Each structure stands twice: as structure tokens, then as C-alpha cells.
């Protein structure tokens, strides 16, 4: 397999300068733990989110093992309840939300903007430390007995009935929220104020547009979760009745406030995935993204409309039928911008130069799986059907198609795509393709049966289930095994490539973007001289011309 470049000439390394980069600029543990370099902070995040991904994955696998048989004979009910709770909390708060923004956003965003760093480097480091404090609390909870409320912490169960570590867990989630707020704030200011000369809004890569939308959602939604968790902690500690009906509160209000954050949080997780996909589609089709402005503004539309639909999680929770109508209608609206993106990505492949390298395989997987995840969202948004499938395995399958089939596929695509830029080494291509195939097959085998078993009537969060659900559950567990192999493989070969991978040039993919105009890995200040942008986003001829000119200067 060759990593094709269009024309090697413009991308020849300026070899003397390239020796010094952000990785070998300084040495020692402290040079990492006290770094203010966004690229090094991204690496810190990469390690931490990977650890949490493994932990959350182990919880998931144990659950799937339990569900091989209907009787619930492997763990006790309490253990199983803790497993799915911790799986949800670890995966959502400590993996999915920070994964793409804090790893790839941190690394690539300032480079894409031609900036030397994010606007507030100290805040950036602080946000990693805050994340680690929240994460440490999470680990303490896991070690000292776990928590069994479900990741949603529904009251009054969480405040009055559960006797597990609810306070510590919510405190961890509360603290971690500030980490993402600081990251979002940093991105917004950087995008507004730190762009390179010539980099107008419509020249920005779509990654930046999506990150902008993500950051807006983070900034405006996360504080509502924070205050909700504060009220929950107050209630639990003082034993007063903010949400507890026995003391005068309304548990449905908790659900309103919780989902005001947690539905937009779904977009905090998927918008960065869309960001990565837009970059990869452009790079591996060597083509301008079809309908650039539609894709860009659909991100902003999702960010706004995503705030208007939260109560579709509560159609049977006891809200008024009229409010349910409004929320159902708005839910249908938010599906439109997602559909626009899918159509535009697909259309970009028309008359393109499609490369079948690993990131593109993940991209094709993403588009296919995200489509299924999206259209099953319509089933849940349609009120009459939701009454039946709400809180069933249908919902579980739906959001895993979005979160795993969408966000994690995009995460894997992005890791492979930017790996040469981050590390200066190529990953082994054939192993990469094998892992992409394993993930795709394993994923579908795991989660497609869950749609079926959900409609038949299996409720979610069930430790033991009726015997007629067993066949589909066995299929699902078998799929999970394949999926696990698909995720373990990259961890091994990416690590291997750090030492043995082929050295990567400045632009191994022949892609367009400022990150491909600097050396791999980039120097500490990202660019040897401040770049001037003269090309539109994904404009291959103009980018190549500009690169040739800078080389000949």
C-alpha cells in the first residue's frame, strides 16, 4: 500500500528544521505534567481517555457476559446494576465527551487556525487537571463499591433510596463538567480571535465549524447539569425535598433539568464526530466537501435545535401530552440538519478520488451506522411508537448506534488520520483495515439484535430477562467479543508504530489543511513562520500552489 501524495515536491521536509518538534523539545515527566503546549495536553488527554475507555469497555463486556443467560446467574443484581451505571458514567463523562474535543480538538484546532496555541494555555492545562480530579473521584467510586443509580441519577431513587456512592459520583461528574466548560471556552475564543491572516470564516475547515458548535453547546448546557447536580447533592446530604415527592418536590423537574443538559450532551458527543468525518471525507476523496456552507450551518442548526428537544426522553414520564407534542415536533426538526450532512458527505464521493485507507473505511462505517442510528431516532421521536419502545433495548441500540457507531467510529478515523501528524509515524495500514472491518462487523452483530429484542419487549437495565429474549442476547454478546478484538488491535499496533512505524512526511495523505503544511510532528510553536492562508477550505489546486510557492521562497 502506498500512501499516495499528489506530487511529492511541495511536501519535501525542510530537514534541518524538522528535527526539533514538540515531542523532543523538552524531556522529563514534569515537562509533560506542567506543559502549556496544547499538543502535549492533547497527548495527556489521549492517555487518560484511553484508560477510561478500557475501563468502561470492561464493564460493558462483563454485562454482555451476564446477559448470555436469562437467569442472571453470573453477578448479583446489585453488581449488575453497578456495572451498567459505571459503564454509562465512565463512557459518557470520562470518555465520549472529552474524547474528540480534548484529544483531537486540542491538538489540531490551533494548528488548523494557524495559531501558536489556544487562547488560554494555562486554562487548558487546568482543564486537564480538573478532568483528572473528576476522574480520580470516579476511580475512587469504582474501587470503594460503586454506584447503582444509572448514569441518569433519577430522583428520588438517587437521593433517598440508593445506599451507594451517589454523592461522590455526582461530585465527580460536576467537577468534570468544568473541565469541558473550560475547553469549550478556550475553543470559542481561539476560533474567534486567533485565526491566521487570510483565514476567513468560510475558509475554515468544517472541523472548526463543528467544534465551534460543540463548544457553544458545552458552554450553555453544562452549567445547567452543574446546578442540577448541586441540587441533587444538597438534597442527598441534607435529606430535604428538592426533587423528592415525599418532602414536597417533583421528580419530573429533575428529569427536565437533567435532560436540558443531557440531550444537548448527545450533540457534544456526535458533533465532534461529524467534525472528524468532514475532514476525513475531504482528505480521502481529495475533493471539496459538497455543500460546504450547508454542512457548516447544519452544525450550528444542530447546536441550537438540540436544546429544544430534551423532553423526548420523557414522553411517558408524566409530562403533559401537549408538551410532548411540541417536543416531538421539534425532535423531527433536529433530524433535518443531520440528514443534510449525511447526504452531502455521500455526494462528496461523486466523481471523487476515493482512497480505501483505514480512516476512509471508518468513515464509510460511520455514515452507514450513523444513518441507522439517526433514522431509529425517528422511531423514538414519533410519539405513538415511543410509548412502546421507550426504556427498552430499542433505545439502547439506538444510542449505541449514535455513540459507538457514530462517535467512536469517527474517533478511530481521526486517530488514524492524524496519527502521522501527532507521532510522526505511520500506522500499519493492513492491520488498520482489519481492525476497521472487525469493528464494523462486531458492532452490527452486537447492537442490531438489540433493536429487535427491544421491540419484542425487553426492558433496558435488566439483570435477568424472559427466556424468549435469549437468542438475540447471545448474538449480541458474540458481537461484543468481535468488537472488543476490533478495539484491542489498534491499541497494540498504534503503540507498535511509535517505534517501528514508517516515518511520515509532512503530508502523507495529500490532504488540504494547515496541519498538513507543517512538519510531522509539528514544532513547538506549530509553524516555523506564521502561515498566510490564500486558499478556500479543501481547495486542492490552490493549496498545492500555495505550498509550492512557500517551498521555493
Amino acid at each position, binding site marked *: 500500500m502506498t500512501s499516495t501524495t499528489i506530487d511529492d515536491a511541495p511536501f519535501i521536509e525542510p530537514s534541518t528544521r524538522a528535527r526539533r518538534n514538540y515531542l523532543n523539545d523538552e524531556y522529563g515527566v514534569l515537562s509533560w505534567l506542567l506543559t502549556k503546549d496544547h499538543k502535549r495536553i492533547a497527548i495527556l488527554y489521549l492517555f487518560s481517555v484511553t484508560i477510561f475507555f478500557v475501563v468502561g469497555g470492561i464493564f460493558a463486556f462483563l454485562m454482555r457476559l451476564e446477559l448470555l443467560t436469562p437467569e442472571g446467574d453470573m453477578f448479583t443484581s446489585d453488581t449488575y446494576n453497578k456495572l451498567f451505571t459505571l459503564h454509562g458514567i465512565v463512557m459518557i463523562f470520562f470518555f465520549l465527551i472529552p474524547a474528540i474535543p480534548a484529544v483531537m480538538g486540542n491538538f489540531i484546532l490551533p494548528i488548523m487556525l494557524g495559531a*501558536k496555541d489556544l487562547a488560554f494555555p494555562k486554562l487548558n492545562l487546568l482543564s486537564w487537571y480538573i478532568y483528572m480530579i473528576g476522574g480520580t473521584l470516579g476511580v475512587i467510586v469504582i474501587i470503594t463499591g460503586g454506584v447503582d443509580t444509572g448514569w441518569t441519577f433519577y430522583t428520588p431513587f438517587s437521593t433517598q433510596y440508593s445506599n451507594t456512592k451517589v454523592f461522590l459520583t455526582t461530585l465527580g461528574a460536576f467537577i468534570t463538567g468544568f473541565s469541558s466548560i473550560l475547553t469549550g471556552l478556550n475553543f470559542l475564543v481561539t476560533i*474567534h*480571535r486567533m485565526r491566521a*491572516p487570510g483565514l476567513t*470564516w468560510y475558509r475554515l475547515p468544517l472541523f472548526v465549524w463543528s467544534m465551534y458548535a460543540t463548544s457553544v453547546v458545552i458552554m450553555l448546557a453544562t452549567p445547567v447539569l452543574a446546578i442540577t447536580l448541586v441540587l441533587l447533592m444538597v438534597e442527598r446530604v441534607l435529606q430535604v425535598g428538592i426533587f423528592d415527592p415525599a418532602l*414536597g418536590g417533583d421528580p419530573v423537574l429533575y428529569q427536565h433539568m437533567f435532560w436540558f443538559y443531557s440531550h444537548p450532551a448527545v450533540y457534544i458527543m456526535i458533533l465532534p464526530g461529524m467534525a472528524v468525518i468532514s475532514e476525513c471525507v475531504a482528505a480521502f476523496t481529495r475533493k471539496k466537501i459538497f455543500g460546504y456552507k450547508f454542512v457548516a450551518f447544519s452544525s450550528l442548526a444542530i447546536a441550537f435545535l438540540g436544546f429544544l428537544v430534551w423532553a423526548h426522553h420523557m414522553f411517558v414520564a408524566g409530562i403533559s401530552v401537549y408538551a410532548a407534542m411540541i417536543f416531538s415536533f421539534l425532535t423531527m426538526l433536529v433530524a433535518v440538519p443531520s440528514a443534510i450532512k449525511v447526504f452531502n458527505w455521500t455526494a462528496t464521493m461523486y466523481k471523487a478520488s476515493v482512497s480505501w485507507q483505514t480512516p476512509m473505511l471508518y468513515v464509510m462505517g460511520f455514515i452507514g451506522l450513523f444513518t441507522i442510528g439517526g433514522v431509529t431516532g425517528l422511531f423514538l421521536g414519533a410519539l405513538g411508537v415511543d410509548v412502546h419502545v421507550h426504556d427498552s433495548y430499542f433505545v439502547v441500540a439506538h444510542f449505541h448506534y449514535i455513540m459507538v457507531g457514530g462517535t467512536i467510529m469517527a474517533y478511530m478515523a481521526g486517530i488514524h488520520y492524524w496519527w502521522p501528524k501527532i507521532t510522526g509515524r505511520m500506522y500499519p495500514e493492513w492491520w488498520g483495515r482489519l481492525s476497521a472491518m472487525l469493528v464494523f462487523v462486531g458492532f452490527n452483530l452486537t447492537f442490531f439484535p438489540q433493536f429487535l429484542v427491544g421491540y419484542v419487549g425487553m426492558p433496558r437495565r435488566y439483570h435477568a430477562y424472559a427466556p424468549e429474549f435469549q437468542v438475540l442476547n447471545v448474538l449480541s454478546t458474540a458481537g461484543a467479543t468481535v468488537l472488543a478484538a476490533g478495539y484491542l488491535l489498534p491499541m497494540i499496533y498504534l503503540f507498535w508504530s511509535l517505534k517501528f512505524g514508517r516515518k511520515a512526511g509532512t503530508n502523507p495523505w495529500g490532504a488540504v489543511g494547515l496541519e498538513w503544511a507543517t512538519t510531522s510532528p509539528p514544532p513547538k510553536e506549530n509553524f516555523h513562520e506564521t502561515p498566510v492562508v490564500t486558499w478556500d477550505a479543501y481547495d486542492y489546486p490552490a493549496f498545492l500552489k500555495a505550498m509550492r510557492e512557500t517551498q521555493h521562497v
Partner: protein
Amino acid sequence: MSDATLSHNAEHAAEPHGHAHHHPFLQHHFEDMGQQHEASTLGMWFFVAQEILFFGGIFCAYFIYRAMYPAAWAAGSKLQHWEIGAANTVVLIGSSLTMALAVWGAQGARRKFTTLMLVLTLLLGGIFVGVKGYEYAEHIHHGQFPGSMFTYVHAQDPALTRGIELFMTFYFTMTGLHALHMVIGAGLLLYFIRRAWRGDFGHEYYSPIEIMGLYWHFVDIVWIFLFPLLYLV
């Protein structure tokens, strides 16, 4: 956000670079003091936006319960001394004035004036928190702290007691979060008093004081809503 407003901001980033003199407080990744100033004030505004949603959430819950338990809410607000609340409002708005004057002083490089105003702000903020503490002590003394310490029973209408406890929960949570913001603000003020006295601030570099001001005024605004909602229902 509209397309026009977004592209409007491109202007700043797109400026040619390379200026001869470097201000001592210019960080390495900014091109000049102007970019640094705009970045930091914009960052603070985003922070204020997230604070608005943070307090907005608890206000939303407050209004829901207020609509559910109007009688208990009315009785609960009678437990507050509105005179103390009003006096504290004056103190806090006064501190906002001195804070605004401190920003004015920093912009004009008036070192002593700025420091004095910051000290006054700290003093007024301290009075506010002190008075708040006195009110808390009174409530706790009268068994009005929610939870196991809540021994208060409404004399005329005992049935209201449970609603009043809910009101007091909101009272303590809302004013507690507000007071916490005050305390954090006071800590920041101490730091800036030192820097102002040292003469760090001037025409080109006053954004830290301006940001401090934005924070302080925001905390003031929260109180502007809390006062009528908790004392005057």
C-alpha cells in the same frame, strides 16, 4: 448566529503581524496586546454566559416550586428581614460602583485610585458576606436550616411547614452559591490589589481588572434578582 456577524470578527485575526515593541505582559502566543485584550474579555464573557445558565437553572426550579406552593413561599419570605436584605443590596451595588471605578482607574493608569477602589470593593463585599453570615446564624438559631436541623413550625398554619422548608432549602442554596461566588471574588480581589499597587496596569494592559469587574458585576446582578425573590415575595 448570522453569517455576517461571524465574518465580522475575522478582521482581528487577519491583521498583519510583527510589531516592534513587546509589552512585558504579552503572552508568547498572542501577536499583540490588542489581540490579548480582546481574547481575555471575550473569554470572560463566555464565562459569564455559562454562569447565567448555571444560576438560571436554579431560578427555573425556584419558579416551578413557587408556582406549586405560593402560600408557603409567601410565608417563607416573611422569615427574612427585608430591611437587612435591602441594606445588603445597597452595600453590594455600592461595591459594584467602586469596582467600576477601579476599572476606570486602571484604564487611566491611576495606580493609587485603582488600588483604593479595589480595597473599597473588597471591604464592601466583606460587609455583605458578613451580614449574610449573621442572617444564616439567625436562621440556624431559629431552626430554619433545612434537613435534620429544621425544627421550625409555622405557628398559624402548620401545614405550610413542609413548603417553608423547601423555600428555605432554595434560600440557602441560592444565597450560598451567591456567597461562594463572592468569596471567590474576594480572593481574586486580594490578588489584584497587590498587582494594582505594584503598578501592573495601564492604558495597554488593564484587561485583568476589567475581567474582574465583569465577574463582580455579574455576581451583583444575581443578587438583584435574589433580593426580591427571597425577601419581598
